[in-house]
């Protein structure tokens, strides 16, 4: 990797050359003279929160290593596209391109010239907070239809038969499902609704119509029906934090897998077309995106954008159906306040994250981009005016998905799913997402990181309706190999509610508190009145208290301050005049 300082010098020399060409009569050799920026000017971008975790890490990295100042504001994909279109930001980041087909809003292409470059791949994960018998569930599995029904309010309780069918080893409680959705315009929402619209159109259209939307296309603004259990929060970070709160038992949301990993929370395994429940791991996402149809026409405005519908139904058992990648939208002309110097920073940043940056993708909870996208991205990066990216083709690129024969190394090496992940009576007990730590020997104290929670036998979860709760009776069972699982037996508890004795106690407590406040002044008044009234006999109280003051004092002996020597309480050691 070349030193950026050197590159600065190189750029300066290039400029000097250009200058000499302009001044001297000598004719320098004709080069395809692209103007290159001279200094790394700070750039600003805004957009997707889906890819923000990776992007923010790269922004820190390039600042630490090269002092390129890049600020990135994760305000959501819609804001990213809009702010880029207005010329407010130097680059935008979005999961969906402008003017997406089947979208519910026009979202027109901006007037300024731009190109899409893939940033990072990943899976839109369903992060959830579910507790059975005091143990966090970390191995939940969901089929696509169940997910669609959960996020359209059709399934409202965790013990729904559809969820139970996906999870034969969990004794699910009758907790309300709280779907946490995005309140801002979000590319993650667009990905989810695109998937629901393609795979479960009836469910989605019914919900969308119920929510009063006139257009049931792919939407970036999730419709919420007032009065439903849905919560809407702004940004991936906030929906993830909402789910991760202890009080949010029963909540489920859709975020990039990295948010679940950061929050140390599990993600649901999603059923794919091959009949396996898979997790959005880096290798599963890499396998999934092999089926994405990528626009490979460099002249198209949508060059490098993907059609993900083949991914949804891909037959590979390792596929995670909601895999996708997001784009950075870069300017390809000097317009507005974009300059050659900004182009220098932007082009090098793109070149950095397409190659070096992808090394960290897996650790961050994403999946590195495959070679074809990196290749296309590097070509697109050269369209950025003023840029002189380090990596102009994949030969210098150090990306973990590359293999000598051009296939995706990560996808080739992706492990097949375990047998217990197949749809059927068995269910894996290992944790997922941010709760996937290795099973620790002899330690069952932490909820997270030690194997998953299993439930009771499938036949044992009885009818949990009519206000009776079912909570698992946690009981740890040692397994071969030292890992621990928890079996849950449903336990029926009496309802709490307002019981008469609680009500009586509360009223009593209120009375005691009130009397503690009100009684002292009343008693004081009465005593004062009595003290005054007593010598005079039956004179009415009002007459004895002309000023109505409650603080009239009982007459007492006046205090007379005598010198110490006249009282028996005088200080013995006091130096008196008579001593």
């Amino acid at each position, binding site marked *: 990797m070349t030193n950026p300082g050197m590159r600065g010098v190189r750029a300066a020399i290039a400029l000097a050359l250009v200058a000499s060409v302009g001044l001297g009569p000598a004719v320098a050799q004709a080069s395809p003279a692209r103007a290159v920026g001279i200094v790394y000017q700070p750039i600003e971008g*805004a957009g997707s929160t889906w890819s923000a975790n990776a992007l923010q890490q790269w922004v820190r990295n390039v600042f630490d290593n090269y002092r390129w100042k890049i600020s990135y504001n994760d*305000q*959501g994909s*819609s*804001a990213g*596209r*809009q*702010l880029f279109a207005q010329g407010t930001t130097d680059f935008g980041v979005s999961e969906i391109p402008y003017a997406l087909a089947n979208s519910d*809003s*026009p979202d027109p292409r901006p007037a300024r010239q731009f190109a899409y470059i893939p940033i990072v791949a990943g899976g839109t994960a369903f992060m959830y907070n579910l507790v059975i018998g005091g143990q966090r569930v970390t191995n939940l599995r969901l089929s696509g239809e169940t997910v669609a029904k959960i996020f359209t309010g059709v399934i409202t309780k965790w013990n729904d038969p559809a969820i139970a069918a996906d999870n034969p080893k969990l004794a699910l*409680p*009758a*907790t*309300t499902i*709280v779907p946490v959705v995005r*309140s*801002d*315009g979000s590319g993650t929402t667009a990905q989810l609704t695109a998937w629901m619209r393609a795979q479960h159109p009836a469910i989605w259209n019914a919900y969308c119509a119920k929510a*009063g*939307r*006139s*257009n049931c296309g792919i939407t*970036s603004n999730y419709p*919420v029906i*007032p*009065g439903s*259990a*849905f*919560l*809407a*929060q*702004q940004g991936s970070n*906030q929906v993830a*934090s*909402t789910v991760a*709160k*202890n*009080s*949010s*038992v*029963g*909540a489920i949301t859709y975020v990039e897998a990295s948010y679940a990993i950061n929050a140390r929370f599990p993600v649901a395994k999603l059923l794919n077309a091959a009949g396996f429940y898979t997790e959005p791991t880096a290798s599963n996402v890499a396998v999934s995106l092999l089926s994405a149809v990528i626009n490979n026409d460099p002249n198209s405005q949508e060059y490098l954008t993907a059609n993900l519908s083949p991914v949804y139904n891909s037959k590979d058992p390792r596929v995670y159906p909601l895999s996708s990648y997001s784009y950075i939208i870069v300017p390809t002309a000097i317009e507005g306040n974009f300059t050659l110097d900004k182009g220098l920073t932007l082009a090098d940043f793109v070149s950095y994250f397409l190659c070096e940056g992808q090394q960290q993708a897996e650790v961050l909870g994403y999946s590195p981009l495959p070679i074809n996208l990196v290749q296309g991205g590097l070509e697109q990066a050269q369209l950025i005016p003023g840029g002189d990216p380090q990596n102009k083709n994949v030969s210098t690129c150090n990306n973990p998905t590359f293999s000598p024969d051009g296939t995706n190394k990560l996808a080739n090496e992706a492990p097949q799913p375990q047998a217990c992940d197949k749809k059927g009576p068995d269910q894996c007990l290992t944790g997922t997402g941010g709760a996937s730590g290795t099973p620790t020997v002899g330690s069952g104290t932490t909820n997270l990181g030690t194997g998953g929670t299993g439930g009771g036998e499938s036949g044992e979860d009885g009818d949990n309706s009519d*206000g009776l*709760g*079912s*909570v698992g009776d946690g009981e740890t069972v040692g397994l071969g190999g030292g890992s621990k699982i928890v079996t849950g037996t449903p336990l029926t*508890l009496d*309802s*709490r*509610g*307002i019981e008469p004795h609680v009500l009586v106690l*509360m009223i009593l407590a209120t009375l005691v508190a009130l009397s503690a406040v009100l009684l002292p002044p009343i008693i004081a008044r009465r005593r004062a009145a009595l003290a005054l009234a007593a010598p005079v006999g039956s004179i009415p109280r009002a007459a004895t208290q002309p*000023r109505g*003051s409650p*603080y009239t004092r009982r007459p007492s002996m006046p205090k007379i301050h005598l010198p110490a020597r006249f009282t028996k309480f005088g200080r013995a050691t006091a130096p008196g005049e008579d001593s």
Partner: protein
Amino acid sequence: MEPRTDRIVIDGVSDGPRTLSSVVDRPDAVFRWIARSGGTIVVTVMTLVGLFLLIRGFEAIQFAGPAFVIEQAWDPNSGKFGIAAVFLGTVFIALTAIFFALPLSFGTALYISEYAPQRLKPFLITTVDLMAAIPSIVYGLWGFFFLSPLILPLSQWLATYIGPWFPPFAVAGFDPNDPLATPTIFSASTFIAGIVVALMVAPITSSIMREVFQQAPLGEREGALALGATKWGMITSVVIPYGRGGIIGGTMLGLGRSLGETIAVFLIISPVFVIQPQILEKGGNSISALIALRYNEASAFEISALMAAGLALFIVTLIINFGASTIVARSRSGSVGD
């Protein structure tokens, strides 16, 4: 020159009102000019802000017509939008905030002006003023991460025991008999947002009250004490009547501020576009939070609609603040004190 007949003229001098003229010297003129232009600029800027909102929002208001004030949904792209839900949501949050801020700031102001030891007083005043200087995003994050999980049991208690009698505390879909009922139904509510906003407006409300309390005339205070009043008697008979204008004015200023509070509400609330008078239940909305949420991603027409919503908030806030400053100003003249 013939003197007019309706005037008595003695020695050729009319007794009509003589014209008073004062000589304005240069420093005076300069000062007057600066003061005048400062005042003019403030009024001009304010008018321009209102005009700007009106011009930018006109397209949306014209499109929506009277439905703009009665429609609850907010979907400008489909032409169905109105401020009924967001405006009332703003009012509910502000009223909740004032409900908590009023006693809090009243007690604070009274303690600082009457009871606090002299050495502690400047420290307390600085602390309260410092509270006003904390950025609202900090309050918002505090409310979202710290306060809202802790307030859930209180909300649940209120909904269980007071909800059945008191409609604003009722929560649809909450069954106190269900042990597995999720407390998230109480999160992201108007109530929580209101409490956080209360903490943000309490400093300004309490400093106004404190200033007015401190202006209660010494003579009357001493008079009350000399007549045998206790300290509390003196406060109830002198300080509070004298400061009544400040209490009302400070509260109204706080109300004005809480109507416009943005980031804290934006962070806490789960936006719904329906009139939601059940303040304990999740979901609510406010105009400023709506603008913050949608501004960045809005189309041109949507921005016009947001501007129109902003105009409504601007007008209401203006009315409340003018009312407040009038009341405060009148109380300072001492005319309210009895």
